């Protein structure tokens, strides 16, 4: 049975292996240079007076395109595996009628399914794991400079580390299950894609924020989280508007300004003659921040800190693997039913 599984799977496996080899070759050729550039750049800028923010910004901008492309590859790979490995695994047999040939050899359907699911599923997880490993390694210097894409955030988190392995296992099992129910390859592919995308959207919206209770903190309003001060010409109320702060690597779930008694406010009302008013430019921005602080306004932030990256990776991989196992269990139950 292992031979037959391999014989049927080898073309797809060879193609995937070749694609991964090309990717790995390109990344391993360019990766060390990229890491060197980053290391020398950082070493140079720390001694300079201006600090590293310019270098970090420029470094990210220079490498933004390959960074985004590789991230997309890791995000899309599990879906491709589900569509092109998972779905046809059973439907191809059902459509050609060959299940009636193979299920009447001296091997039970359960064993047949176990070998096919096991081998192809492991290959799927390996492929996704290797792809993610290569991209995670290659883009690690860029990840640290990507201020807009924190590694806990919804773009980078699912494209780094070990979660792609879980996604691949789930997508593969989903494809097989849908194929078994729909029984035709093309409609089954469409259904698999829709369900997988829905799950991948639902995960960061509904589940991942709550894997661990988010960290809450109350921070003062400074340059990092002040969006601007709104003062209408010709007098009127002066208002400060806040924005989400930047916490390195963290995924900001919510942020809003609160007043002295802790109630959320949309904007911070300020005196039109105080330190923040445009009529008092000589006092400078630090006086303005001092006034905001004196009035008791602060910002409340809930977020998932960067230190939870690996626990979250394990949790999420576990969740997806459990889903995949559940679907596989369903397939075993289903194949024992009438399916001829």
């Amino acid at each position: 049975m292992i031979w037959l599984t391999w014989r049927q799977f080898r073309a797809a496996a060879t193609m995937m292996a070749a694609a991964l080899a090309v990717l790995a070759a390109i990344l391993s050729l360019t990766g060390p240079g990229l890491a060197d550039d980053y290391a020398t750049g950082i070493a140079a800028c720390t001694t300079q007076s201006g600090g590293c923010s310019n270098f970090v910004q420029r470094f990210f901008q220079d490498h933004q395109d390959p960074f985004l492309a590789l991230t997309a590859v890791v995000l899309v790979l599990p879906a491709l595996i589900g569509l092109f490995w998972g779905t046809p695994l059973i439907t191809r047999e059902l459509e050609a009628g060959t299940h009636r040939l193979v299920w009447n050899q001296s091997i039970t359907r359960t064993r047949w399914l176990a070998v096919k699911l096991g081998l192809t599923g492991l290959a799927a997880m390996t492929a996704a794991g290797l792809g993610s490993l290569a991209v995670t390694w290659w883009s690690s210097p860029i990840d640290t400079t990507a201020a807009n894409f924190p590694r806990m955030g919804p773009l980078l988190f699912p494209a780094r580390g070990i979660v792609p392995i879980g996604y691949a296992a789930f997508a593969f099992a989903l494809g097989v299950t849908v194929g078994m129910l729909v029984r035709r390859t093309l409609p089954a592919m469409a259904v698999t894609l829709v369900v997988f995308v829905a799950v991948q959207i639902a995960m960061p919206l509904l589940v991942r924020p709550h894997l661990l209770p988010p960290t809450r903190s109350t921070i003062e309003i400074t340059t990092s989280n002040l969006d601007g001060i709104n003062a209408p010409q010709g007098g009127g109320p002066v208002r400060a508007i806040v924005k989400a702060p930047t916490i390195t690597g963290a995924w900001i779930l919510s942020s809003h300004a609160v007043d002295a008694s802790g109630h959320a406010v949309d904007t911070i009302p300020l005196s039109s003659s105080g330190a923040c008013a445009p009529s008092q430019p000589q006092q400078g921005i630090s006086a303005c921040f001092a006034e905001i602080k004196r009035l008791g306004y602060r910002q409340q932030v809930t977020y998932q800190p960067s230190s939870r990256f690996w626990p979250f990776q394990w949790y999420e991989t576990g969740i997806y693997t459990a889903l995949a196992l559940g679907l596989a269990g369903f397939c075993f139950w289903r194949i024992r039913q009438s399916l001829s």
Partner: protein
Amino acid sequence: MTAVIEAQGLGKRYGQRWALSDCTLAIPAGRVVGLVGPNGAGKTTLLNLIVGLLTPTSGSIRVLGGRPAGSPAQLAKVGFVAQDTPTYAGLSIADHLKLGARLNPGWDAALARDRIERLGLDPASRAGKLSGGQRAQLALTLGIAKRPELLILDEPVAALDPLARREFLQGLMEAAAEHELSVVLSSHLVSDLERVCDYLIVLVDSRVRVAGEVEELLATHHRLTGARRDPTRLPADQHVVSASHTDRQTTLIIRTDAPIHDPAWTVSQLGLEDLVLAYMGKPADTGRNDRPILEVQR
């Protein structure tokens, strides 16, 4: 006499429709069984139940004493050539033989190789490139070389031209005789089965209409021709299978174990095809014969 297939009240339902109902059979070993019936009569359903591709909705079935497809040992004892003789289009003939060898502990590699050689097939050619007849032969080779005790074939010759049909059935019969196989093969054409089977099952509208040894069926069925009369007034041991009337004449096909003494009838022997056609019609109580004859020829 041991039964290779024993079915008791076997039925299979799809939604509201019974594809097979109340099927009770006991097929003795060592027979070549012909399963005839029009398309949609439930032949494939019955065969799929025998090989365990389907599970019964009602009743029970034992094949060679075991539950169909219940274990690898059970699977090894039953060979199956499915409808349209499916093979893996992308795999070569040699791959198929290797598949058979890997998946069947009782695989007879020499037999398979010889058979392919005798058929003049190139082991390197892909199954998808074979003609219908060649593909059927490949499927039959897989079925025979696993050395089953019972070989089931679902309409194996339906798609073949007359020459390929004859060659296929010839090969099947040789193998059956050589390896003392019990064989069940289905067809909607009696003429396909006439020359090869010695046991017959007629399946119509999901029910078994008649089953038995061909010789016995031929010996107990007669065609009676005579002046027009009511077929219900026959001796109790004569069962009317079909009746047809013209203005002046009545023709009956009856089943009876006893000799026919009524001098008013002209008694003649039935061929297998006539016998099957008589059963394929509706039950004989309508007294009319305007029904279409199903599937006489394709």
